[in-house]
């Protein structure tokens, strides 16, 4: 190539270290903004995107723009749509970030945020609460906690079980034993959930709709529920982005480079599981985002976690908000489960990315 010039310009460094390229960062932010405005503008009532953008800017203290929206339209925008879109952004960001973290920690491209039993635990928790309600014969009976809390607690119990079982027998929690323990815990809890569902057939519909994921009942309450966990998870996982790059050479070599691989791994697993549990508790089980978004980022922007993690946050958020837009507009009156949308549009897109990029998946 330019080896002849090498001698002449020894000081010139043509290779920049891997990291987040500004163009990608800008693209991610733009994607989030587009998803935000589109998610707010389209629905059963169409709102002009320019007016939506103006109202959004009005939320910034000191800004006063004329949006041209009626009072009712502003109410739809701020009370109904905004919390739902924001929740979609947060959940999408969490799932994609947790998926990327798991893939790095386990050095396994198939790792997804539900790997350690989050889905099965949340599923059992939700099913148990719904079944208990149906047993009491009163759907309006007020348990001290609702479906989101049941899902959250169930997910955390499942991950804790996986964690404990993965270390049973005095062995260290190697990535492989943790994954296997996660498989065992998931199967066990799924079996328990199926049993409860069979005993309470009247719960099937409600449980099923939760399993497929939904952002339908989203209000500011749900956003406030998930926001603290999202913030903590995001901060911890993003702080470990360089460590994840070092971990790609394996634990022993990472140790030789001065790292505590086990410590980083525990930190990441706990943070990612917490974020996933919080996301699942408000959105149900939304598959695919946690696998597809990080891999797309890896294929497009390179293998460094310094770009994969922040880009997964941005594009995961945008992807899920747009998927939710389709879920509530494409099917007419009846909403399509968002999990169906993410897979239906995500899978073909991912195949295209996979076939048209030359960068190998890990």
């Amino acid at each position, binding site marked *: 190539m*330019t080896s002849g010039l090498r001698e002449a310009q020894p000081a010139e460094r043509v290779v920049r*270290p891997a990291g987040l390229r500004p163009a990608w960062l800008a693209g991610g932010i733009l994607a989030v903004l587009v998803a935000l405005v589109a998610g707010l503008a389209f629905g059963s009532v169409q709102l002009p995107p320019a007016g939506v953008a103006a109202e959004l800017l009005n939320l910034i203290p000191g800004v006063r723009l004329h949006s041209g929206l009626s009072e009712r339209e502003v109410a739809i925008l701020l009370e109904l749509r905004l919390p739902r879109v924001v929740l979609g952004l947060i959940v999408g960001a969490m799932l994609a970030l947790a998926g990327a973290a798991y893939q790095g920690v386990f050095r396994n491209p198939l790792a997804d945020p539900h790997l350690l039993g989050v889905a099965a635990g949340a599923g059992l928790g939700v099913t148990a609460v719904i079944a208990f309600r149906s047993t009491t014969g009163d759907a309006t009976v007020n348990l001290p906690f609702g479906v989101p809390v049941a899902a959250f607690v169930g997910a955390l119990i499942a991950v804790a079980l996986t964690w404990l079982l993965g270390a049973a027998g005095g062995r260290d929690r190697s990535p492989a034993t943790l994954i296997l323990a996660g498989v065992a815990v998931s199967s066990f809890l799924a079996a328990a959930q199926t049993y409860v569902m069979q005993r309470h057939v009247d719960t099937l519909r409600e449980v099923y709709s939760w399993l497929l994921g939904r952002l339908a009942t989203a209000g500011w309450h749900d956003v406030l529920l998930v926001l603290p966990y999202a913030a903590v998870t995001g901060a911890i996982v993003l702080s470990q982005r360089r460590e994840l790059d070092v971990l*790609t050479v394996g634990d022993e*070599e990472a140790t*030789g*480079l001065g*790292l505590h691989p086990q410590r980083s791994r525990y930190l990441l697993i706990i943070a990612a599981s917490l974020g996933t549990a919080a996301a699942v508790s408000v959105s149900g089980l939304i598959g695919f985002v946690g696998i597809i978004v990080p891999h797309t980022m890896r294929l497009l922007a*390179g*293998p460094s976690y310094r770009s994969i993690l922040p880009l997964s946050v941005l594009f995961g958020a945008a992807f899920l908000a747009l998927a939710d837009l389709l879920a509530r507009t494409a099917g007419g009156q009846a909403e399509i489960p968002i999990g169906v949308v993410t897979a239906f549009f995500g899978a073909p897109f991912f195949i295209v990315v996979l076939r048209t990029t030359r960068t*190998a998946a890990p």
Partner: protein
Amino acid sequence: MTGDPPGERAIAVAGLKVWLEKTLIVDGVDLDVGPGEWVTIIGPNGAGKSTALRAIGGLLPFQGLVELNGVAVDKLQRRERAKTVAIVAQSPVVPPAMRVFDYVLLGRTPYVPPLGRESGADLAVVDDVLGELDLRRFAGRRLDTLSGGERQRVFLARALAQGARILLLDEPTSALDIGHQQEVLELVDRLRAERGLTVLATMHDLTTAGEYADRMVLLAGGTVVAAGPPREVLTEANLAKHYRVRVRVIEGDHGPLVVPVRAT
């Protein structure tokens, strides 16, 4: 050039015992390496060479004493240890799609503060090392597209980027043809002279091992059975006993040449 006080040992090992899964692999090894010296550990498969090397590098729990530049390796903070000793594994993991530059930059990990990023100085060190090992033209290439010989140079480059004065090499030439074996070992020898590095290596090829090492340690069954200059260790009697092989040892220009002979 070297800041080490005279007579100080770069590596001091006494009574080293290492267990792997409750099996005693290294059973009481003593060895010393002086600053700037090259010592090679040889021995049959299963003798405990790699295990001893990894323990000396602080990567395995052990009993006994291992001192690097006079400090017990298990007392060193991990980052300090990584600045003191660099290890090239027998077959290092090649991260998929990672570029050579980024891989070598991983060597600067012990210098990057937690939550921080590499400084301009770190990037300069990597650039220097790439230049010194004639790897600049590969800087933007993916490591997994390089040949075995090129990769071995990149592995070495990462170790050098660590800035450690002690270099542990586990079978550095086992994956290479004889031309590239010589190239890599010459490179290590040159770097040792230029940078005042101390080298402790394990090797299988006895002739090559003897040509480059100042001293050799023959390990068998986890213990040292012979140690000294290559001429004293690479004897027909030693090798027959511990490798269970008939060899002829011929005096060469740079050390003994070991030729296996078929047993009738």
